[in-house]
């Protein structure tokens, strides 16, 4: 069952990412990004990160994607024209990591990794909440993140406002 959920959400992620990269229109790619992000949330649940999966759904699927859709609606539409010369250089870049992946698949990643832990995952929301508010764990990064979010909020409102014609 766990294996089935891995393949299902993995396929969602892969198909979504492929459609983002090769989709013909911007809106299609935006919804394909939703599919990929939901797939990643499902993978998080399968890996025992239940709180993180929820955060992924709320923030990414619910927030960032809406932002993208607004960005698409506020800007002019355009289609991507592919040509052999424009694909040559990115294709060359993509060859390297694909070759590394194939090499790893050939030799077997399991031989490089340490032995997998057999511990069963427990619910994480409680531990994460405590870790955020404990001083010698994640309290300082947590407070800094709130500052970053506040400045991003103010900054994006400042950037996106329409300047008065003078």
């Amino acid at each position, binding site marked *: 069952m766990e294996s089935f959920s891995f393949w299902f959400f993995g396929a969602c992620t892969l198909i979504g990412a492929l459609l983002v990269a090769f989709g013909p229109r911007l809106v299609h790619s935006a919804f394909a990004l939703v599919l990929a992000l939901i797939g*990643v949330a499902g993978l998080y649940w399968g890996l025992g*990160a239940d709180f993180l999966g929820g955060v992924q759904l709320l923030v990414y699927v619910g927030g960032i994607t809406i932002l993208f859709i607004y960005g698409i609606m506020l800007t002019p539409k355009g289609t991507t024209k592919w040509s052999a010369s424009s694909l040559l250089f*990115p294709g060359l870049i993509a060859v390297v990591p694909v070759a590394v992946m194939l090499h790893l698949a050939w030799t077997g990643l399991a031989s490089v990794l340490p032995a997998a*832990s057999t511990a069963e*995952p427990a619910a994480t929301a409680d531990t994460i909440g405590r870790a955020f508010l404990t001083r010698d764990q994640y309290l300082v990064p947590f407070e800094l993140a709130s500052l970053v979010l506040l400045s991003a909020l103010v900054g994006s409102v400042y950037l996106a406002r329409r300047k008065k014609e003078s």
Partner: protein
Amino acid sequence: MDHTAGCVFLGAAMFVLGVFTMVTRRNAIYVLMGAELILNAAALNFVAFARHLGNRLDGQMFAIFIVILAAAEAAVALGIVLQIHHHFPTIDVSKADRLGD
């Protein structure tokens, strides 16, 4: 059942597709989507290895901070895209090449 290797492969594939999107597309919003794919690939690796090494919380915390920073990045970057659209008539990243008027 251990899916660490599968998650690492999936992360690598997402990373490659994200870089490909950022390099080939001219539309600024596509470039941002490629960045989101790359960030998700990195976060997936963190979580997969955290699970592999025994349900450690550190990897998940890194992924949570990645999500936080991605949200801030997306908001600011889309604001910048709107300003580029306001300043130039286009959001083609290769045509927005002037700093002044």
